[in-house]
């Protein structure tokens, strides 16, 4: 089967800054998979020797509130203006956004300011009145996955492991899921554009895996805010995730790779929920298909301890994948806290007991 690969990236090639970043964290991610952002920072500074500012003063972008009509657009603009003001105070010009919702939101505000300069003036006034701060528009805005994409070959050179099944020598079959707000709002801000986004498939290829295309590749994971936040609409949310799993199942993927905090969470946890509802999984076992973000995967390949980067937080157990990839780990250390003290393990991992 012809797969989506970096050769298809003819139309959209974005500029990604090479160093001196300012990190804009995700508000939800640190609760779901707290190790992902930590390992991103560590890879950047310790492995790649790049500089990045991790600023404790920045806040949520309020994107979820904005998309659910709780936060008005004026407020949203002022909050984003404040993040830019903090960047300015630190002397940073290259923003790196951890969250896909935020990434879409930052670009939405910047495009609004381009088209309607009066909105920018209003945001400047509001920010000044509320905080006394001034801001500059960043020179470059990248999503964190763009940075890993940019340095994918360097990571491959440094990595002791590959996306290869060490028992068979075959490349692992990886399906990617790109968050909707990464490319579908502003295709030119995405590596490869909206229809053939290559930001993740290029990583898979560079790291020895085989990207696998499947019919519902571009379908939403079900994290649409208006759907899952309103409880009676959650069946709509989970039915979207189901559509994706049904579509990818015949390809028997070893792994799902994501670039969005919400997608990572939903594709992991909804497998459990669907298994409990329907009594079936979409893998050959009861575990389910493992789901990793690009930083978690980069961290694993670079030899980080899976438990130090929080992979025990995943519902679908990562241990079968670690074994397949020949990654050394301690099963005994899986549920110990940072001080090494054992924690209560979950009742079970995976999707079905």
């Amino acid at each position, binding site marked *: *089967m*012809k797969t989506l690969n970096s050769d*298809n990236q003819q*139309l959209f090639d974005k500029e990604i800054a090479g160093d001196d970043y300012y990190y804009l964290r995700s508000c939800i991610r640190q609760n779901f998979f707290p190790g992902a952002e930590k390992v991103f920072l560590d890879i950047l500074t310790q492995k790649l020797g790049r500089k990045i500012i991790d600023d404790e003063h920045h806040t949520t972008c309020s994107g979820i509130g904005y998309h659910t009509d709780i936060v008005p657009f004026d407020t949203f603009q002022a909050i984003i203006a404040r993040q830019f003001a903090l960047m300015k105070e630190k002397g940073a010009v290259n923003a790196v956004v951890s969250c896909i919702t935020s990434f879409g939101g930052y670009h939405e505000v910047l495009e609004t300011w381009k088209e309607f300069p009066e909105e920018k003036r209003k945001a400047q006034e509001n920010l000044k009145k509320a905080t006394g701060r001034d801001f500059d528009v960043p020179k470059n805005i990248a999503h964190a996955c763009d940075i890993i994409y940019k340095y994918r070959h360097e990571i491959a050179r440094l990595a002791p492991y590959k996306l290869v099944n060490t028992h068979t020598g075959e490349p692992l079959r990886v399906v990617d899921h790109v968050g909707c707000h990464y490319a579908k709002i502003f295709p030119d801000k995405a590596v490869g554009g909206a229809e053939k986004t290559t930001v993740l498939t290029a990583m898979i290829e560079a790291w020895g895996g085989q990207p696998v295309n499947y*019919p*519902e*590749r571009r379908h939403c994971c079900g994290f649409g805010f208006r759907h899952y936040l309103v409880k009676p609409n959650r069946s709509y949310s989970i039915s979207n995730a189901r559509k994706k799993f049904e579509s990818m199942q015949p*390809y028997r993927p070893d792994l799902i790779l994501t670039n969005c905090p919400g997608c990572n969470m939903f594709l992991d946890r909804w497998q459990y929920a669907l298994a409990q509802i329907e009594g079936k999984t979409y893998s050959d076992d009861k575990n389910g298909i493992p789901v990793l973000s690009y930083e978690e995967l980069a961290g694993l390949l670079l030899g980080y301890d899976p438990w130090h980067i929080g992979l025990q937080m995943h519902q679908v157990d990562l241990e079968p994948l670690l074994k397949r990839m020949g990654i050394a780990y301690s099963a005994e250390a899986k549920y110990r806290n940072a001080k090494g003290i054992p924690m209560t393990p979950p009742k079970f991992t995976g999707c079905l007991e």
Partner: protein
Amino acid sequence: MTKKKHIAIIGGGIAGLEAGSVLTRQGYKVTIIEKENKTGGLLNHWSSLFPDFSLPGEVLARIQPENPDLTLIHNTCIESIKKENGRFELFDKRHLKLYADALLLATGLSVFDASLKEEYGYGLFINVITSSDFERIHKAGQKLLTAQGDPPKRVAIIHCVGSRDAKVGNGYCSKVCCITGVKQAIAISRMLPECEVFNFYMDLRLYGSKYDALYLEAQKRHQIQFIRGRLSEVSENQDQSLQLKAEDTLQGRPLRMQADMILLLTGLEAARQNENLCKNNHLELDENRFFKSENMQYHRNCSRQEGIFMAGSCICPMSVNETLDSARSAAIEVDNYLTQKER
């Protein structure tokens, strides 16, 4: 002597050939400059013509001008036009220089590059083809087969690919694709009677004589199904068949459909050289990148530059018979201009 004036025609498609034929018969010297190694333009690639399934070769055979006053220059692309002392100077990249008393533009059309509509998968999924691909297959006398070599059981024809689509910068209607879709659906049905054919359309713009009759025939005799709906995306299944996601806008419902092949009816665009030809003179392009007429009601063949005329689809997309009519009317305008100039 008016009759020995020289007219240069840019483009050796059917518009250029027909206008050249009329003008030489009127006693002018004509030079046709064609960018390919063969005259006939896009008609060389079509298998049959709507609405009567006549052969393009028959049209081409009738309009090949044979006259000692007509010169054909092949493999030459005119890059710029300059007016000097009441005459036109034409240049190509290789320093060809040609003088003419009047100039007729017949640069024709180019076909929209379907791979730009990434969501439809042309160039990515092997069983997605375009209307031009189908014409080539049909013309070669081959059967339509999937990439696996099997006759398709279901084909979906998608209208308006790169036409009436602001997203790709083509807000206008290419006009002749709807009837081409009907014609190709019938051709597939004749070729593969067991195959189900679906046409997904936005509007059916069947403006020409006998076009509606063909549409009716498609439905009644060939059981072609027409769904008013816009395709949102195409994906490939494991067996390389295709999944369509579309909206049936009459039912107001999204739909998913499996098909063995998808045929994209590609829109038509102005020739890419048009922009270059507007330099150093008063030629203008309209908002759709076709040549702008001096007046679109009663001087459609006259450009914004005195002495330069237009014929055929360089004005807007046209069917074969409209192109020929346009070429003849352009020839009259050229003759009027040169006659008046002489007086």
